[in-house]
């Protein structure tokens, strides 16, 4: 049985950063990822990473923008840490080799981004996530002696010891179907968000909420699950992302009548208001009949000089060409709000510690909470890196002062039995693809930009029914080599569990704040709802709701206008 001081599940930005930090702290490290690390969905982050590095800028300004962006639901102690540590993290990346674009003097260049009072977004064209992810992987290769990589290993279960602490994980080698119990003194979940719960989504097919569901199953608390971000600019058919960097570089939003409608909704920041505000504005235009017949509005990138677009927004030129048949340097492209990110996740403290001892979480899977009700663009890369590093360091410190915990004897056979049961299923149940499609459509209809009690109740009912159907869904593949069918069945169960917590939290919060806009409770209500909605299984089979206070350090809630 392999054993490590620190075991990391997921190898996107948070996971790789945590791995490097834990190794540097002196721990032995194992990194498990269900895909090759460079395929992790961090690769799709486009626009950039925020840091108040310029002398004229300040971390306080960055922190205030973040607090305001969060609609005052973000925990201000965590936000302060993130914004204070941002410049050092950025320079660490630069020295590790990230090819950040420069300004005319050869210093790091910036671009403007939504909800920010200064241009503090550092970038590599519009492939910032890819560039950082690949450079972190270079570092992983460089430090191969201190790190074991389990690439294309799927984590099926977290393992909990006698005292309720996390002591490892059970993982399946996709290549040959072998199950392995990996023992660890500390486990860091870094397995990303849950975009596939929605359809369409900007997220890749691998983003199925695994870590959120796994943590919930072993008793960890989830927080802010109702806060699901709709990105203002996604393609209408397939939901692909058009980076906010486009608006940062100067692109306009236009309705079908050719009006720059953001003048009505956010007269100061216009297209660069925070994402929840822009998405609601677009959705309102579309619902009130000023959109195009395909249910969209237009993004006009021709306002950006063509050379600049080709140099700095190259990827969305490709996306426009390949997936919408539009040359964005010559004509506007049709876009609409689409599922993009979950602010909520596994509740952690500022060192990544969850409510289960020995279990840490960082990145989109976690909720520290630095994003509160609405995440600012280019704060997610920062979140993954700062809290990935902090989790790696604190997990390593914990591990270095304790012996290797023992693992319960039955855990491996339990998992083997569960997998065998899935493999025994035949082709007579509902199809996994059909269940997933219905789930995604349901969430996108009832738990989207605008929500109300009736729709949420309907969604809840459908999700419960789908959970039952999923338990007997058809399996076509009974082999052991790269059996993607059995993995899809497990992922489906994760997605449904995550969906249910999202719906429960959205039903619970009876006000409008950030990404949660209730048409039946259209006002923000600080008196009753300036608090986090927490969800946990609490020993029973059904998720239970509780509350926790929002940490406020120096910024009292104010009215939020852009």
């Amino acid at each position, binding site marked *: 049985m392999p054993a490590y001081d620190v075991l990391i599940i997921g190898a996107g930005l948070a996971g790789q950063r945590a791995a490097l930090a834990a190794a540097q702290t002196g721990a032995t490290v194992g990194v498990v990822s269900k895909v090759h690390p460079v*395929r992790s*969905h961090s690769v799709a982050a486009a626009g950039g990473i925020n840091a108040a590095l310029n002398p004229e800028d300040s971390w306080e300004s960055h922190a205030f923008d973040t607090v305001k962006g969060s609609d005052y639901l973000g925990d201000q102690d965590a936000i302060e840490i993130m914004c204070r540590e941002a410049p050092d993290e950025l320079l660490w990346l630069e*020295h590790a080799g990230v090819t950040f*674009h420069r300004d005319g003097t050869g210093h790091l260049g910036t671009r403007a981004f939504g909800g920010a009072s200064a241009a503090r977004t550092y970038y590599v064209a519009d492939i910032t996530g*890819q560039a950082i992810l690949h450079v972190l992987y270079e570092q992983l290769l460089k430090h191969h002696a201190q790190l074991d990589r389990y690439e294309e290993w799927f984590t099926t279960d977290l393992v909990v010891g006698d005292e309720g602490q996390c002591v490892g994980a059970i993982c399946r080698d996709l290549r040959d179907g072998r199950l392995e119990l990996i023992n660890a003194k500390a486990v860091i979940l870094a397995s990303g968000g849950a975009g596939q719960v929605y359809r369409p989504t900007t997220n890749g*097919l691998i983003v199925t909420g695994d870590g959120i569901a796994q943590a919930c199953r072993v008793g960890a608390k989830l927080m802010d699950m109702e806060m699901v971000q709709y990105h203002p600019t996604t393609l209408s058919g397939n939901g692909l992302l058009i980076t906010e960097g486009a608006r940062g570089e100067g692109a306009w939003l236009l309705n079908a009548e050719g009006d720059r409608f953001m003048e009505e909704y956010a007269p100061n920041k216009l297209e660069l208001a925070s994402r929840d505000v822009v998405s609601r504005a677009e959705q309102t235009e579309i619902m009130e009949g000023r959109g195009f017949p395909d249910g969209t509005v237009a993004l006009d990138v021709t306002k950006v000089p*063509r050379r600049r677009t*080709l140099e700095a927004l190259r990827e969305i030129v490709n996306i426009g060409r*390949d997936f919408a048949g539009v040359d964005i340097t010559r004509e506007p492209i049709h876009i609409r709000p689409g599922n993009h990110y979950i602010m909520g996740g596994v509740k952690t403290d500022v060192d990544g510690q969850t409510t289960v001892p020995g279990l840490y979480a960082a990145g989109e899977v976690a909720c520290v909470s630095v994003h509160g009700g609405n995440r600012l663009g280019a704060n997610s890369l920062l979140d993954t890196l700062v809290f990935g590093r902090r989790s790696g360091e604190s997990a390593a410190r914990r591990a270095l002062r304790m012996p290797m915990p023992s693992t319960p004897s039955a855990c491996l056979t339990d998992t083997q039995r569960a997998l065998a049961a899935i493999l025994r299923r035949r082709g007579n149940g509902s199809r996994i693809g059909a269940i997933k499609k219905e789930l995604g459509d349901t969430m996108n209809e009832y738990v989207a930009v605008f929500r109300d009690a009736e729709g949420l109740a309907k969604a809840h009912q459908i999700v419960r029914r789908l959970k039952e159907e999923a338990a007997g869904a058809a399996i076509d593949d009974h082999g052991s080599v790269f059996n993607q069918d059995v993995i899809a069945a497990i992922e489906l169960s994760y997605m449904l569990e995550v969906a249910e917590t999202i719906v429960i939290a959205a039903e619970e919060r009876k006000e409008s704040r950030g990404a949660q806009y209730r048409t039946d409770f259209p006002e923000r209500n600080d008196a009753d709802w300036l608090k986090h909605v927490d969800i946990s299984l609490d020993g029973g089979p059904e998720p239970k709701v509780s509350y926790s206070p929002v940490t406020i350090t120096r910024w009292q809630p104010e009215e939020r206008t852009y």
Partner: protein
Amino acid sequence: MPEYTLRIRRFDPLSGEAAYWDEHFIEMEEHNSVLDGILKVKDEKDGSIGIRCSCQQGICGSCAVRINGKPGLACNTHLEEAAHRGHGVGWNPPAPDDTSSGEGLKLPEIMVEPMGNMPVIRDLIVDMDAVHWRKIQRVTPWLINREPVPEREYIVPHANMVDVTQPMSCIQCGACVSDCLSMEIDPLFIGPAALAKAYRFVGDPRDAQHRERLFDLAEDPHGIYDCTHCFNCVDACPKGVDPMNQIMRLRRIAGTDYDIEDRNNGYRHEHAFVKNIRRNGLLHESDLLADSYGGKFNPAAGRELVSSLPTGIKGLARRKMTPKTALMHPHKAPKPVSQTFDRIEGRDQRVELNLYVSGYEDDEPADETESEERR
């Protein structure tokens, strides 16, 4: 909606069966991707089809396959384009299948196979660790920082960072490795993806070991001089990385800027080409080998000429050359050729063509600061 025949190459290593073609009929929009087609079949009919995929937008690099003989990403290849695309070099389409010849009406056919040059694990999934990632490791794929490491960022020209964005935009999908002809002949060739990765460091002013890296890649018999300019990697790359171009830039920097004359004679051989064209106006092959070793009458060339005698004799036997053409110069370069050489060699700066920087061909000319020029 148009209909297509989707033929997927299947292989299950545990079944004991040989690989086979699995045929499906799909009805989808022309602009749907090949991956959309495969996932539809997988979702609705057969969940056992193996293909790696995630982002569906050409950025994660998971779904590279061969489509009608050409490597590329399944997610950004449209069905209609795939059905009518030309075949890649060296592709042998399978013999027509009797079961598929229906009642006269023939649907456009899309054949999806696993990538080449890498062992197949299952269906469309290949072992990238065994080939691609091992080669990436070969080029010391991390920055070796120039000392002293500054307290803040390194101050470097914007143009250099935009320049290395081209190799940096490689998504490690393996499409170029799949159809690299040199690698087919020499499996040890470091290959297009890894060498493009190497340029990412050689072109990065923050790296301290440009010379060491270049020397290493020039001296390796499977290194930069092992590429044969077949352009397959340029055609294959879905991200415009132009791996071959990066290899040529490594050669120019190694040979011209660092004067690295490798033991494989790659540098001299390349220069022999230039000299040969300058003198003859067109390639005079029988001079090439001798020129690579300093000319026919250079004693160093003698041994090489003797050892390549069998090739020479074969060439004579097949009338590729005659004793006369082998010994004489039948053709002299016309004046415009030497004028072109003079003009280009007379420039004080070398101009590199980097389409990632300069956009498309119909673009207005790049201004001074943004065009990529070295030294």
